[in-house]
């Protein structure tokens, strides 16, 4: 009887643990790891920082989706060798995260739109570390993580030699989602859809200069912006994305076709002196 009682107790204990596990899994937060590494495109190498979903460095920053007006929770872990000061989009004070430390982040709620979790530390800010939070965005959606830098300067920022842009700043790497090839149709930057679709495009400028974007073929409506509230509702084909700005666009294609969309500060449409490249991608709209 005693053995039977112990067995029942163990089964109950196991079920309780399982329930806790299920509950924990249900509410498991995503973890944003601050990674920094040397990377290269073609023969050009440079340092880049990013918030990734694991400890493996990728040039593109992670994207997290949340519903509107609910508690937003995630963990930020510092996988870098230096401390990072992390800024949240809710206006709260930045917090410092030591190497190998992590912190649970709770934001009571955010309105509809696109926001960023950014590193204010030079090695993060200038090297493009900014996770993208999409709130209340459903349906057909895409995200652009914009960044630019001078490859030589990335090493100076990386080793702490400099902590500000020089007076003469001549970036040569302009990227969307970590890529520079507009002809790569597998790129996550390429917008695909059909005539009449409601397509949402989230943009965060993790670069260090204003990026003026131009759409061929279509006007888009500015649905939300963290820095240009006076322009919300405007239908534009050309518009700036300010430094560290989060922005949400709506595109409802009226015609099919393949059209470029690119930075109209035309030095940004080059990589390694090759055109078209850099901050340029494609819209692929089916009938």
């Amino acid at each position, binding site marked *: 009887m005693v053995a039977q009682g112990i067995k029942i107790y163990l089964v109950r204990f196991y079920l309780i643990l399982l329930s806790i596990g299920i509950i924990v899994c249900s509410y498991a937060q995503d973890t944003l790891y601050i990674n920094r590494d040397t990377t290269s495109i073609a023969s050009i190498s440079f340092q880049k920082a990013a918030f990734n979903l694991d400890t493996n460095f990728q040039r593109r920053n992670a994207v997290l989706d949340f519903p509107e007006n609910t508690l937003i929770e995630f963990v930020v872990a510092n996988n870098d060798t230096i401390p990072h000061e992390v800024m949240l989009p809710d206006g709260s004070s930045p917090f410092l995260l030591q190497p190998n430390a992590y912190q649970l982040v709770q934001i009571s709620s955010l309105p509809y739109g696109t926001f960023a979790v950014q590193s204010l530390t030079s090695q993060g800010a200038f090297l493009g570390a900014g996770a993208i939070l999409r709130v209340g965005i459903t349906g057909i959606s895409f995200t652009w993580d914009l960044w630019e830098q001078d490859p030589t300067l990335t090493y100076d920022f990386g080793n702490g030699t400099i902590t500000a842009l020089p007076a*003469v700043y001549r970036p040569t790497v302009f990227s969307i989602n970590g890529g520079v090839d507009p002809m790569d149709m597998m790129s996550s930057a390429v917008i695909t859809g059909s005539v009449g679709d409601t397509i949402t495009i989230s943009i965060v400028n993790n670069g260090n200069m204003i990026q*003026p974007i131009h759409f061929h*073929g*279509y006007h888009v409506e500015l649905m939300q912006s963290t820095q240009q509230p006076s322009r919300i*509702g405007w239908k534009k084909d*050309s518009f700036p994305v300010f430094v560290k700005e989060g922005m949400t666009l709506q595109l409802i294609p009226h015609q099919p076709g393949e*059209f470029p969309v690119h930075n109209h500060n*035309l*030095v940004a449409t080059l990589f390694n002196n090759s*055109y078209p490249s850099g901050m340029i991608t494609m819209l692929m709209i089916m009938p």
Partner: protein
Amino acid sequence: MKRFFFYIILVSCFHANGQGSLKEVFLQSKMDGELTLFDGTEIVFWGYGIENQTTGMAKISLPGPTLRFDLGDTARIQLRNTSPEAHTIHWHGLDVDQANDGVGHTSSNVIPNALFTYEFVCSEPGTYMYHCHVLTPLHLAMGMYGLVIVGGEAPEQLYDSTTKYTKEFSFLFSEMNLSWNTNPLSPGPFALYEADYLMVNGMSDQELEFSDNTVVAGENDTLAFRMANIGYGSVRAIFPPELEVYAVASDGRRIIPMETNELEIFPGERFDLIASPLQAFEGVITVDYIDLRNNNLLGSNDIPVIVTSTVGLTNETLSTSSVYPNPFTESVHIESEQYPATIDVLDNTGKLLKRLTVTSASEVDLHDLAKGLYSLRIGTDIFKIFKR
């Protein structure tokens, strides 16, 4: 204002299907432009010019000719490429279909000696631009750009009756990278682009003062400003306090009117504005040019503004004569209300250089003058003219 009518050349026009007209424009793309800037610097430029249908010749200008259509028009633009390199025309902001988008990779390059016809319907009023989209960083910077204007629902309306005006002024802001425009075949790394010259309608610094880009109006006039930025950097237009200015549209789409005394226009953007003088005054619209790479102020241009107290009176109506183009290269066209008219050409110290008499509206050859600033005296009218 004459400048705009002078540049707007619509060769053929007839009604089609009762919805606007079919308007045809014949352009050539060329790479043989030469220009002397206000400081004496000689440059070469590439661009577009209207093709003379009799001679088949075209002369390119910087910027290219302003193309104006009416709402609902079908625009048919024939581009003949008489240059040694491929070019296109991208209709910036007009949302044309892929075949007419003017991008070599997705549409068609117009190879040397080839002809390509673009066609689209002007379905939204507003201010647009056109430019070459082949190796765009270089071709655009070399001067291959211009303005497209689609008129409103009725004449002298930007859009509808809420945006009526009595005088219209268009300003296309751009830049020039001197090393490219002096040696375009060896441009060097494109990323090292520098905006050495800052332009309004292809002119900068003191050229603007002597050109016909001055905003001249009466205090009861309602002014329409069309502003477009094709440069690499942004521009900030700072309006004089005596002007009440509202931005009413951007990129060819209406916006809720927004009062502005300082408007930043980013690369590729266009704004349509309605301005009302609060009083008679003389001032300037200051245009700051900003390098987006580090927000450095590159320099400024001043667009003169003269608002007279006489209702609807402008210097064009005060004058009994007119002279254009200005600046000029070889000759100027002179019209006077009275003939014969005596024309004195004076240097900038007032010294009489030559005296001519014309008996009708005439093209006056001034090719023998050195480049620089001169005065033309026609009766009681005095015009400052600038030879490039």
